[in-house]
């Protein structure tokens, strides 16, 4: 298992090892058994989009919204502070 999905509502998987661009990641956990082709390097424990995400979409992990997408991200790409932000914290995005 290269990446894990924690809840059936989740739209990201979390990398369980550093993964290279072009790799076909085996995704396990809830609803597991899928594979995902990675469009870029994904460091250990970082998140990968399971589906295409548009700006304004909510990012789901643990079955709950962990933030909002700020810049469109395609399936197989990294999801992190460069393309998503917290909804709960007070400061507006830079």
């Amino acid at each position, binding site marked *: 298992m290269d990446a894990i999905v*924690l809840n059936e509502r989740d739209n990201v998987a*979390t990398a369980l090892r550093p993964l290279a661009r072009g790799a076909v990641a085996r995704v396990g956990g809830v609803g597991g058994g899928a594979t995902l082709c990675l469009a870029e390097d994904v460091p*250990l*424990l970082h*998140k990968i989009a399971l589906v295409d995400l548009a700006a304004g979409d909510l990012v789901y992990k643990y079955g709950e*919204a962990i*933030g909002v997408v700020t810049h469109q991200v395609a399936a197989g790409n990294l999801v992190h502070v460069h393309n998503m932000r*917290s909804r*709960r914290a007070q*400061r507006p995005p830079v």
Partner: protein
Amino acid sequence: MPTGDGRLMQFLGYARPDGSVGVRNHLLVLSITGLTGPAARRIARTLPGCRCVTMPYGGGLLGADALAHERALLGFASHPNVGAVVMVGGNKPELVRLAEQLASLEKPCEALVLDDCEHDALTLTDRAVRKGAALARQISRQRRVPAPVSSLFVALECGRSDPSSGLVANPLVGRIADRLVDSGGRAAIGETVEWLGAEHLLAARGVTPAVGEAIVDAVRRREALAVDAGMDLLGNNPGPTNIDAGLSSIEEKSLGNITKCGNRPIRGVIGYAEAPPGPGLWVMDAPAYAPESLTGFTAAGAQLLLFTTGVGNSFASDLCPTIKLSANPVATRRLGQQLDFDASAVFEGREPIETAAERLFEAVLDVASGTLTWGEVLGEGEEVVSRFGPAL
């Protein structure tokens, strides 16, 4: 000591007159005010093996600070892990009051005030060492006896988290929390700011709507503190260590954090250093920084702490054995003399989480029964009582 169904439900502990059970039997040298801190440390150096806690403040404390100070002093002095206490201080009425409280709990205690030592710290030192030595010998006569898991209060902490904390380590600890609560024991989490983003999930588990409101209110007040101070909640939490390790938002971090309190109903919100008034799961409204957070739990009477980390964190409580665990394979391979429990096999898919939970529960009872944590072996513990405002 397995029960009929093979599950461990007991540990070996020190039965105290007040009904509590300690997992350690410390002689505590306690300076109740800052003036006698150096003297207390000098006393402690002459009583090898004792624990020394010094409160750097004393006179002039107001409001929440005065309350925390009072709670913490009684909490340390009467702690189940403390066999006896030598208290020193420069405030006679306070010392007398504490001694009376300890007498009613039948906690062996000697109280020495600077005023009664001709205001001479060396005279204080001499008398305290002699009395402390006698107490140390006295408490060494006590032996461990079987005690039920229900007598345990275990508090749960995370520090230097990474996503492996939320993926494995915290859910693992959550299973321990559930088991403790189901056995009639007490469990607690704190670090209020880290509930931010997930507080609605915690609030829904309150045993009454009032508890739910108290949880949401605690987070709102903590958040307001940050905003009023002009703090950048995005930049500071998750911190740089967390962000490098993959955590993108406070919601993600908080959701990963709150799995460590398991799934049981939440009995209520307790204040900093406040003892939970009954069995079950409690949440403490407290700062997130480990030294302050751990001391809040210790002062509240927790006998053991379970501390998850992602990348590594060596800090521990001094009075309360602090079991360190991580599921990060890099950290667990590297930190052989810091991490007490290795959960990386779950992370690597080599062990089911249920098996690891069983293993962790056994480790908790093992430490409760006397096995030392790395933090105890290496002296990584320190008690730090929070401050909330200015003093006169």
